[in-house]
């Protein structure tokens, strides 16, 4: 059943496969973001309560969703890396960590810039904001642990354990809004059935979200390729490839 997956456990094949995917992701991301952001900034209607400040939504919400999804993805990759000894899974976890950290930072900064005019404060120690901040710390811990080991294989395993331990944080973030009756509103877009927004606000959001998602995919592919190269630097195919490219 899993036989078709076997060739992808080979670093060389995966490297070339990823290389082929990268331009697709890049162009999809550029096109979707260009449409989505123009739509969001120029054509989407302003909110009846929040006015034009609502446009921050189109960055804040995709970034927040992605920051958590990337962490879950990283933890799953780290878990399979530890359990099935997949070196490539470790490499993909290492590639995802900085991307996730950047998106968490974006979610926090845009959230602060949105909270100031709307709630009346840049920052509040509410459960959801706090756990997003902890998520950023977790990402930074994982990255720091990656850099602390000379041996990349060991670094991947150690950071993987931390990522799995930290995954307990994700449900706390996800459900904190329901647990504590605090300032941050409930989820808008993941509501089943009808989204709690009108269609002319929702469509640009979808474009932005998938634009950012493909951006994540493209950058992760690039970083993943880098990780594969640095982990296999002594292999003949890497040497040949580098010789070809450096010339």
């Amino acid at each position, binding site marked *: 059943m899993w036989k078709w997956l076997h060739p992808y456990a080979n670093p060389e094949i995966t490297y070339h496969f990823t290389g082929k995917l990268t331009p697709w992701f890049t162009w999809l991301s550029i096109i979707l973001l260009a449409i989505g952001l123009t739509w969001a900034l120029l054509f989407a209607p302003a909110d009846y309560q929040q006015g034009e400040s609502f446009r921050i939504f189109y960055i804040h919400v995709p970034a927040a969703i992605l920051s958590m999804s990337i962490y879950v993805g990283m933890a799953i990759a780290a878990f399979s890396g530890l359990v099935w000894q997949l070196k490539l899974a470790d490499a993909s976890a290492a590639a995802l960590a900085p991307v996730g950290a950047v998106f968490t930072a974006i979610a926090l900064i845009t959230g602060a810039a949105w909270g100031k005019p709307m709630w009346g404060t840049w920052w509040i120690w509410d459960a959801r904001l706090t756990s997003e901040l902890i998520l950023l*710390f977790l990402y930074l*811990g994982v990255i720091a642990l990656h850099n*602390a080991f000379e041996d990349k294989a060991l670094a991947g395993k*150690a950071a993987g354990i931390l990522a799995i331990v930290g995954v307990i944080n994700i449900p706390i973030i996800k459900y904190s809004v329901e647990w504590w009756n605090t300032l941050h509103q409930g989820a808008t877009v993941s509501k089943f059935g009808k989204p709690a927004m009108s269609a002319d606000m929702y469509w640009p959001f979808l474009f932005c979200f998938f634009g950012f998602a493909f951006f994540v995919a493209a950058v992760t592919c690039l970083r993943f390729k880098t990780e594969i190269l640095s982990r296999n630097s002594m292999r003949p195919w890497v040497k040949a490839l580098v010789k070809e490219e450096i010339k």
Partner: protein
Amino acid sequence: MMSINIPSYRQAFMLMLKRDLTIALRHKDDIFNPLLFFIIVVTLFPLGIGPEASTLSRIAPGIIWVAALLATLLSLDRLFKADFADGSLEQMMLIPQPLFIIVLAKIIAHWLITGLPLIFIAPVLAVLLHLNENSYGALMITLLIGTPVLSFIGAIGVALTVGIKKGGVLLSLIVLPLYIPVLIFATSAIDTAAMNLPYSGQVAIIGALFFTSFTLAPFAVSAALKVSTN
């Protein structure tokens, strides 16, 4: 000395616990230094903030818990570092019993040495900080359930960084974010108690954190030790 038949899990656990406690009793500063640190940190706050009783009593739960957290963090190093340095850690990993038994014994020993004394000294410090009189019960309960969680989570961090030179700062970067939920719920419980409201919800969450770390941390620590001593 070594018996011929392999000791059972329980015997291995007790042996390890006894060994660590004996070592700690020989080096008494292992017990007293974190405790002294705890007391000094707590006394710094009234000096820095001012001796006004109403202010102090409001921030007392936070001060005591943050100080307990830092004291635990400071004492984490001795959990595996000495054993790693003299090679006895690698010996422990070779014995036939599963590693998590040893790990569990070491963590419990660590809590008995550093966590338990904090609990005894905390009410005295709480008096100095004018803690609301309704809160003492909550303070003791949260410390009793919460400090073991600190030892368990901390052990994961130490196990990950034990092989790294200058792992100290990295250790706090890894461990402190994971400590935050304990801190939030513990101080929330103490605050709630001060208002004479029921705080069993918060205690239940800390209890849940305790059981989670109790059942899962030993496995995570064993895995981390295997990586570090590679």
